[in-house]
C-alpha cells in the first residue's frame, strides 16, 4: 500500500510537472526556442487568478477563463513586442531574450503584486477522495484530467490541423515554411499565446497546492527534467516525462531519502536528466536530427 500511495501521489505531482513541461514544449515545437520565462508566466498567471478571486471577489470558475485569456494575451503581446523583432535572428539570441524577459517579469511581479506570501482560495473540496485505499486531493485529480485532455487536444492539433502543421513547419525551417505559404507572424503569435495559456493552467493548479509568491517562478526548474526526458518537441512526451519524473521523485523520496538522511528526492530528477542526455539526447519521444552532407 505504501508503494501504491507513493506511486499515485507521484503521478498526481507529475501531472503538474506535465502541465509546466507542455508550455515549454509548445513554444519549442512552434518556434524552436526554449522559453526561459515560462516559470515567470506561471507565477504571473497565478497572481492574476489570486487578484481576480480574492481582490475582486470574482467566482473561481469565472476567474479561470479570465486568467487564461489574460495570459494568452500576454503571450501574444510578448511575441509582438519582444520576440517578433528577433525573427530571422539566431535561436541563441532569442533564448537570451527570454532570459531577460524572465528577469523583467519577476521584477515587475514584485512591483505590481508585492513580495508577500499569498494563499489562493481553494476552489476544491478539502476532503480528499479515497479510491481503493489510495488518497487523492481534488486538485490533483483535476490537474491529471486537464493534463490528459490538453495532451489529446494538442496531439490532434499538431498532427492534423493546418495551423498545427504550420507551426511545426515554422519550427523546422522558417524560410521554407514562408516559401510554402505559412504566415510565420501569425504562427508565432499563436504559439506564444497558446503556450502562455497552458502556463496559466499550470499556474492556477500550482497556486492551489503551494504558497503563492514571486518564488513560484522557480518551480519551472523542477519541471525541466521532464521536458528533456519526454523530448523537447513531443506533447505526449511532456506528459509522460512529467508523470515519470513525479513518480521517480516520489519513490526516491519515500524509499531512499531516509537511508541517506534526506535530499535524494530533489537530486533524482536531475540524475535522470543526465542519464537521458547521455543515452538518448533527444529524449524518449524527441526527434533525432539527421544531417546529410
Amino acid at each position: 500500500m505504501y508503494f501504491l500511495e507513493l506511486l499515485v501521489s507521484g503521478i498526481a505531482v507529475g501531472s503538474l510537472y506535465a502541465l509546466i513541461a507542455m508550455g515549454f514544449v509548445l513554444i519549442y515545437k512552434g518556434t524552436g526556442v526554449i522559453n526561459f520565462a515560462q516559470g515567470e508566466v506561471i507565477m504571473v498567471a497565478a497572481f492574476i487568478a489570486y487578484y481576480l478571486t480574492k481582490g475582486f471577489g470574482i467566482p473561481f470558475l469565472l476567474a479561470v477563463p479570465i486568467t487564461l485569456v489574460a495570459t494568452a494575451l500576454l503571450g501574444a503581446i510578448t511575441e509582438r513586442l519582444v520576440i517578433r523583432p528577433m525573427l530571422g535572428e539566431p535561436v541563441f539570441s532569442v533564448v537570451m531574450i527570454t532570459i531577460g524577459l524572465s528577469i523583467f517579469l519577476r521584477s515587475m511581479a514584485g512591483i505590481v503584486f508585492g513580495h508577500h506570501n499569498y494563499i489562493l482560495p481553494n476552489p476544491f473540496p478539502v476532503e480528499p477522495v479515497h479510491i481503493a485505499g489510495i488518497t487523492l486531493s481534488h486538485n490533483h485529480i483535476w490537474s491529471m484530467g486537464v493534463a490528459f485532455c490538453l495532451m489529446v487536444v494538442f496531439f490532434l492539433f499538431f498532427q492534423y490541423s493546418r495551423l498545427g502543421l504550420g507551426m511545426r513547419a515554422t519550427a523546422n525551417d522558417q524560410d521554407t515554411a514562408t516559401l510554402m505559404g505559412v504566415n510565420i507572424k501569425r504562427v508565432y503569435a499563436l504559439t506564444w499565446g497558446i503556450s502562455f495559456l497552458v502556463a496559466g493552467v499550470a499556474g492556477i493548479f500550482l497556486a492551489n497546492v503551494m504558497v503563492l509568491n514571486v518564488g513560484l517562478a522557480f518551480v519551472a526548474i523542477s519541471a525541466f527534467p521532464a521536458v528533456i526526458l519526454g523530448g523537447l518537441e513531443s506533447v505526449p512526451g511532456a506528459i509522460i516525462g512529467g508523470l515519470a519524473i513525479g513518480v521517480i521523485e516520489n519513490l526516491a523520496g519515500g524509499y531512499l531519502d531516509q537511508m541517506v538522511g534526506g535530499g535524494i528526492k530533489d537530486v533524482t530528477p536531475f540524475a535522470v536528466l543526465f542519464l537521458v542526455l547521455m543515452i538518448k539526447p533527444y529524449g524518449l519521444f524527441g526527434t533525432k536530427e539527421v544531417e546529410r552532407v
Partner: protein
Amino acid sequence: MSGKAKFIKTLLMTGLLVLLTACLAMAGGRGVTDKEITLGMVLVKTGPVAALGIPQGDGMIDYMNYINEKGGINGRQIKVIWEDDGFQAPKSVAAVKKLVARDNVLTIMTTGGTNQTIANMKNISRYKIANIPNAMALEFFEPLHPYIFALGALYEWQYQVIVDYINDDLKMKDKRIGVVYTKKEYGKKGLDAIKKRAAKYNIPVVAELVLPTGAVDASSQVLALQQAGANIVITCDVLPPIISFLKTAEKYNYWPQVFGFNWATDDLLVKACGPAAKNYIGAGFVGGWADDSPGIKLVREIAAKYDRKPKLTSLYIGGVGVSMLFAEAIKRAGKNLTPDTLKAALETLRDYDTGGIFPLVTYTTKSHAPAKKVKLYKADVEKKCLVPLTDWRSPKDM
C-alpha cells in the same frame, strides 16, 4: 615648493582638519545635527525573500515615525534611510558603504541576514556601526564583536526548548520524532540540535526528511513519516514548505504534533492552513500579535496608526522592537551622540523590558549575546492566529 611654504601648507591643512573635526563634534558627530539623527538600515525589499524583510523594515520605520510624532528623542527627529540588498551579501556591503560614506548615517540598525552581516563585519568595525542583525548566529557574539548586538535565541536553543517541552510537557505515549528540514544553515543546525537533545531524553528520531523551500509537494515526506510511525514532527523549515506539509498531512489524515521554529511561527500559517494547523506549535522570540502585553498592544496601535496590515506579523513586531532598543539607546546616549556613545548606551541595557515584544534584553561591555528565551505558541484555528502556550523559556541545563 620651498621647505617653508611646504610647512605652512601642512600647517594650514592640519588646522582645517582640526576645525572640521571640531565643527562635526559640535554638531553632534556622524549623522547627527541639532535637529535630526540619520539612521540607516539594510534589509531585503525585493526578490524571493522580500516577504521577510518588508514587514520588519516597516515595523522599524513605523516606530521611529511614532517617536518623531511624540517629539523625537532629546529634541531631535529621526530619519531612517532603507537600502535594499536583495538578500545578497555583495549588495549589502555596497549598501553599508553608501549609507556611511554618502548618507553619513549615525549607524545602520541592521545589516540584514547572517551572510550579509558576516560579509560586513570589517565595515561594521571600521565605521563603528552598532547594529542588530536580522538573523541568529553564534559568530555575532562569540567572540564578542564590539558593534554587533545579537537578538533572538539561536536556532539550536529554540530546538532544545522544543525537545524539552516534548519530554516534560507533551502528554503522549511512545514518543517518536520525525524531522523535516531543509538543507540550509538553519535546517542543518536544527536537525543536529534535535538529534542531540532527543538522544539525551532517549526519544527516538525515527525519520529525517528533506523538504526544500520551493517544494511542489510534500506527499513522499508525509507518507514516509507515517510509515516510520512518527507521532511528533519537528520542522526546520520556513513558512511556505510547512504550509504545504500541513495541508498534505491533512489530506492523508495524518495528525502528528508538529513543531516549528521562529521563521515559521506566524499567524499566516494558521490563516493559510485552517484546520490543518490544529496540531501546530511554534517557537518564537517575539511576542504574538494577539498577546495582551503592553508592548504588543503598542505594536498593534502603531500598525493601525500607519495603516499597516502586515502579512508576517512576527516580523513586524520584531521590527518595532529593534527600533525601540535603538530609540532607548539614543535617549540614554544624550546630546553627545556619536557611534561610540550609542554603542556604550546599548551596553547599559540591563533586563530592559520591551513590554513583551522581546524577552528582557541585556547587553554589557563583555557580552552582546541574545537572551536564550523563546515562547511556545499553539495554533488557534477558530481565531486564525497563534496563542501563547508557555511563558518565556530557556533550554534546560543538561
